[in-house]
């Protein structure tokens, strides 16, 4: 099976400390140049379930397709730091703390996107 080209491919290329992207949806934030981001994280206590993570970040950290409006989110990609990858899961560091996970969230490794 061919993987999409913008995926972060597996072993050897997923090095901790680098930036990667995760899929998200985006609404306007509180301040100008700020966005409210929603991303799905894996629930560490129940891997088959996901947690909706909310965080407010500077707009330059998100690649957005379209113009977000309140209650009408658009698709986007959030830049995160890669902290750890093992067993098909990745722990990423959020640029600003997210609700309810804090600084880190866990996603499936195949959900990581390259630039």
């Amino acid at each position, binding site marked *: 099976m061919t993987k999409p080209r913008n995926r972060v491919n597996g072993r050897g290329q997923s090095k901790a400390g680098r930036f990667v992207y995760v899929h998200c949806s985006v609404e306007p934030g509180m*301040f100008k140049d700020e966005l409210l981001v929603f991303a799905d994280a894996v629930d560490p206590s129940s891997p088959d379930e996901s947690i909706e993570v909310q965080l407010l970040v500077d707009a330059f950290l998100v690649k957005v397709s379209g113009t977000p409006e309140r209650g009408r989110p658009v698709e986007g990609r959030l830049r995160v730091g890669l902290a750890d990858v093992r067993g098909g899961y990745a722990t990423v560091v959020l640029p600003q703390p997210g609700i309810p996970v804090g600084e880190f969230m866990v996603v499936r490794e195949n959900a990581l996107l390259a630039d």
Partner: protein
Amino acid sequence: MILCDYKIKEAIEKGELVVTPAPVASQYDSTALNLRVGDDFRKWREALKAPGFDGSIDLDHVHLSELLPLTEPVEVVNGIVTIAPGDFVLVRSLERVSFPLKSKLAARVEGRSTLARLGFSVHITAPTIHAGFDGRITLEILNHGPFAIKLRPNQSEICQLIIECVKGIPKRQVQTRFLGQSTPLGTPKGKTPRK
């Protein structure tokens, strides 16, 4: 260990700490870097204080999308924002601050002593800026004192960043929550945890 002025400057020069726009000499204190207030002041709508308004929030089920529209801008008059006694105002620092993951640095944002004497609090809680943080720092300003405080957007230095060394590369949460597990989620049945 807290970084002194020239160590902060060295960290910036090495890219271990990124501050944009670059700080000028007057922003360096002996053991801190002063940051300026931005220009986008917000406050919670006055209507939220109206009698009979149900303003309760369940902290375990916060929906930011519903809360954010309840703020409104604070007026800037002749280049000055006035924060009256009792006012609670949100604003971000002018400077964008970034700590690369492997920088082994973290920071705390604090108020400044002169402002504290006036009863002017610039940051309420959760002062830690973690490795991997990237953005402008949100300040939660509360004027406890008797004076109306005037601030100049993009100019007034109202908070300080105290920068500290972190021992080790910050993976603490990963290693405490998931210590001895083959994946961040746990160890699959029948497998030995990875050391």
